[in-house]
């Protein structure tokens, strides 16, 4: 009963947020164009939060995703200045993400350092590397090949509105593809269920024959690659790269996963719930910006809403626990 209230409470809250903006911004908010716009704005966060979900189901964290996103952006941009082709530079940047993720995995699962400490350290390392690689500069303008910047601006046309084409942004498509892959991995494969088992009880999982160390290691590869991909998406969207541009992603991504957890029946991280969390944060940001709320006030509001939602769900859980 309480659980039902808790879950639908979360959904109702989200609908209330949307209704609030729809009423206050009748002209611009619930238009297809704005919704497509929001989908593009949140695409990077979606990718990072979805891959963050993979490690959070094991009860782990990856704090280094933001600086990894910055690093991969500047790596690609620097390679562009050396006249590398777009696919080659993108490939190298993703490989850097994979390597960084595996490194996190080794430190956390083979060496056995707490993920909080380990990824806090690699956060600093990646961030420093981003400055070293880029020399602290922003790389933009003619250094960025047109093909790279155009990717974010393009996308298939899906209709017309106000005599202008409605474009489904390529970045949105990328985000959808990532969510789909993560959903299949977590919900439809035995690999994913084993990660959940590790989160459920690590010792029991090991004694039941689950190879905990390699699985934990491998899961961090997802966050590494996801962060690198998000960094590239960001660089493509702004057609430039600087060594701090991805930094804001980490906290928001973790917040999105937590928001999502308030929606699931058993309070577990689930990728579709994470997507809902991302959407709420995106809608809030877009709506508040349109209402010209000052950006600092916006931060206060968003933080308060996260606290409220997660707090409510914790109270509900305590109610459920009391009945035991």
């Amino acid at each position, binding site marked *: 009963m309480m659980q039902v209230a808790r879950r639908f409470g979360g959904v109702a809250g989200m609908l209330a947020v949307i209704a609030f903006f729809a009423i206050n911004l009748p002209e611009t908010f619930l238009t297809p164009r704005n919704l497509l716009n929001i989908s593009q704005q949140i695409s990077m966060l979606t990718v990072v939060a979805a891959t963050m979900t993979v490690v959070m189901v094991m009860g782990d964290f990856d704090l280094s995703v933001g600086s990894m996103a910055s690093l991969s952006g500047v790596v690609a941009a620097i390679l562009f200045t050396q006249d590398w082709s777009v696919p080659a530079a993108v490939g190298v940047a993703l490989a850097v993400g994979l390597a960084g993720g595996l490194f996190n995995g080794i430190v956390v699962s083979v060496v056995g350092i707490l993920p909080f400490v380990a990824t806090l350290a690699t956060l600093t390392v990646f961030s420093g590397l981003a400055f070293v690689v880029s020399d602290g500069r922003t790389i933009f303008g003619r250094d960025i090949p047109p093909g790279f910047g155009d990717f974010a601006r393009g996308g298939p046309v899906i209709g017309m509105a106000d005599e202008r084409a409605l474009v489904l942004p390529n970045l949105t498509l990328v985000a959808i593809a990532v969510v789909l892959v993560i959903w299949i991995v977590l919900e439809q494969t*035995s690999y994913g269920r084993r990660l*959940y088992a590790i989160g459920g009880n690590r010792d029991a999982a090991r004694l039941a*024959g689950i190879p905990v160390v390699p699985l934990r290691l491998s899961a961090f590869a997802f966050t590494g690659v996801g962060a690198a991909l998000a960094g590239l998406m960001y660089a493509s969207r702004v057609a430039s790269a600087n060594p701090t541009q991805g930094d804001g992603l980490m906290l928001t991504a973790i917040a999105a996963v937590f928001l999502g957890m308030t929606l699931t029946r058993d309070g577990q991280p689930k990728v579709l719930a994470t997507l809902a969390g991302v959407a709420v944060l995106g809608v809030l940001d877009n709506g508040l910006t349109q209402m010209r709320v000052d950006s600092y006030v916006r931060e206060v509001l968003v933080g308060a809403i996260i606290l409220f939602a997660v707090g409510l769900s914790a109270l509900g859980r305590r109610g459920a626990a009391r009945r035991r």
Partner: protein
Amino acid sequence: MPQLDLETISRRFGAVTALDGVSLSLRPGEVHALMGENGAGKSTLIRVLAGLDRPDEGRIMLGGEEIPPGQPAAMREAGLRFIHQELHAVKGLSVAENMHLDHPYPRRAGLVNWGALNAAASEALARLGLETIDPRAPMTDLGPGDQMLVRIASTLIADGDRPAWLYVMDEPTAALTSGESERLFTVIGQLIGQGGGVLYVSHRMPEVLRLADRVTVLRDGRHVSTRPLSETGEARIIEEMTGRDLSALFPPRRSDATPGEVVLRVEQLSAGPLEEATFELRAGEVLGVAGIAGSGRGALLRALVGEQSRSDGTVTLDGRTLNGGPKQAWRGGMAYVPRERRSEGLMLRRAIFENVALPHLSGLARLRYFLDHRRQRRVARDLGGQVQLKAASITQACEELSGGNQQKVLFARALAGAPKVLLLDEPTRGVDIGARSELYRLIRELSDAGLAVVMASSDLPELLGLSDRIAIMRDGRLSEFVEAEGLTEAELLSRFYHLSKEEQAA
């Protein structure tokens, strides 16, 4: 001391009625045994009594006055002390601090008085004859038996003007060896002698017959009877608990026991405390592993499953050498039911079927990697039926199950992969007598069908009733193998100790 009355207590969890109008009177000066199958509602009643859970209906009266429900402090104030069923030790805190978790720490000038804290702990430990345990040692250094004894000791800590008089013990001996249990019984005798009362829950019938003055039986959350021990007995209690006559707890051995092929060959296996174990196990054989606490029973099983990394020796299962961890052991056809079901066995907050499927995910998947949800559930449901699991549905979270039913989930998990060798560590700890007879029947059926079983246990009747051979362990070594047929408990027990005496003489 006045008496404590529970009046028509009811407690429902969703569709499950855990307690249905149960009334009970607890008096000083006697041991009151509370009996019932797994899930009968014993622990729920105790949690209500402890104020950890609020009843839907009913009152708790002390000498005619109501104690407010759902308030642990009020129950403490009324002089009640509890030992709950599941072990909870706070890591990082010392033994003495763990013993003071629900007592105020002794203080001096507002600061913790460590000397007094440790002294109070030592004193309580000494009453259980536990002088060897250092109150300053970290709790997690102790084995599970010692941890339980420490918890029992912590109820004996005197604190000031609120004397304790009623001690409630939920399966206190489940984790204890017979020697440790004896010490507990001595203390229970002392407590009664000093005018205290005890509410005692156990699935071990001999203890109850020996300790109890009165016996209350619960069944499916309802009160069946409360009688003085003199007016009831083993057969009657079991009948009232289960509605069945269980005079033959152990199913008969097969008469035409032709020994099967050798499935497990262990040579010179050393791992952790285990030293140079060598033996063979045949298909259809049940090997009991016996010995006093700390003799290495559990270590042997952990070494076999590969959890304890080995320093020497080989394990060959069905012709293939095992040298990896638990993963390879499960793959190769070994299944393991660990001793600590909550910390080592279950994902408590996850569904029954997920717990059952855990080691077999690849086998139950389509194309090896893609989950087949329906098949997982079907397997869990079939096996749940086979082990007579009592649960609302297989999607229920394991933490909602009673202790015995949690154990059955682990049995279902072990059997789901059709193993060749089954490793059981204390398989019926906390399992009620009805379910136990089912598990015994199951083990016998499986072994008749060719499954080889290694069963470490501290329960002597179980070792004797179920094993074909018994391996006796001492100081990490397999010291002797004996045929179980015809052996008595006394003979078996004497072999545990005889060897030590001989050795001392030498």
